[in-house]
């Protein structure tokens, strides 16, 4: 039996898996999310970044937890680089590697803990809007993972509002 047309919930669930995966800190787009967005575009939807579609306080709590773990990975990776530069062969970045491991576990735990998942996109008037959060770390990571921001800074998203 052929599956019904894709919904924004499908897109949001794929996005949720992308942002709670070990690779959330990667600049690589998540294939399933990009695929869903392409299908929406092919169906005539436009995709926008929205300044007015904001998250509720209960959703911000989830985002804050994701931000803390993501920042921990970014910070620890930075400290590893600094230690390697300063100490060379004597560097012992194992403590920071442990922090990265904890953060990756933390992201996966978020996935299990918040089973209703975050609704990063909303559909309105024939368009798909990416909601905005006050945390630029989250915004930047989310846009990379959804393919809306490309690593070479090619802004492929239109601004709404």
């Amino acid at each position, binding site marked *: 039996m052929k599956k019904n047309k894709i919904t924004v919930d499908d897109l949001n669930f794929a996005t949720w898996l992308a942002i709670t995966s070990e690779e959330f800190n990667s600049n690589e787009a998540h294939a399933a999310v990009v695929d869903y967005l392409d299908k929406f575009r092919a169906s005539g939807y436009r995709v926008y970044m929205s300044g007015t579609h904001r998250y509720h306080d209960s959703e911000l709590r989830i985002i*804050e*937890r994701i*931000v803390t773990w993501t*920042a921990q990975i970014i910070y620890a990776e930075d400290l590893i680089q600094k230690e390697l530069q300063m100490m060379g062969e004597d560097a012992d970045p194992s403590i920071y590697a442990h*922090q990265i491991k904890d953060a990756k576990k933390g992201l996966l735990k978020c996935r299990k803990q918040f089973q209703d998942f975050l609704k990063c996109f909303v559909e309105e008037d024939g368009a798909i809007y990416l909601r905005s959060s006050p*945390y*630029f770390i989250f915004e930047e990571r989310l846009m990379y993972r959804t393919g809306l921001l490309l690593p070479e800074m090619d802004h492929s998203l239109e601004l709404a509002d």
Partner: protein
Amino acid sequence: MATINQKVDHLNKLTMIAITSKDAYMHTANKEVCEFINALKSEGYNISEGDEFDIYTDYEMRVIDRLTALISQSISADEVIRYGMADDGEELELDQFYNYISDSEIGLLECRVNYPDGIRFFYLDGDDIILKTAPYFIFQDCIMYKVGLYVSEEILKTKEYLEMAASAVWEKNPLDD
């Protein structure tokens, strides 16, 4: 006269003020917290960081999550401002990153208003006053510096610290034999 429980409550309030201040993300000590801790030490209390069992409650973790997210935002924006470059070496427009730091400062002040008494960062256990352990090392680092349990670089450079270090009698390390 205040009881020790009231003093620990006050310490938590001062710690909340320190960790929601503009310099929350910097590895510097907060004078008021450190002076209060020194007074507690002079009364015979031991102040220390807890172990992995001294953790925050779920309710407290909501506050810690928000504080850490805001502090992380300031750290990341400050890093960009210091180096002023994108991954590809292109110069960045920095105004936006100053705005991110301002937004974080506003967010931290909101936390202070929402939780004026702070949360139980410290708790009393006999003669010990123990700082709980957060799962986020960014937050734990910041709070350890703020309350003076880590020695900040600025203190390491003071004349008093250098004199104290010079006059310290170092224990012999048996492994050196």
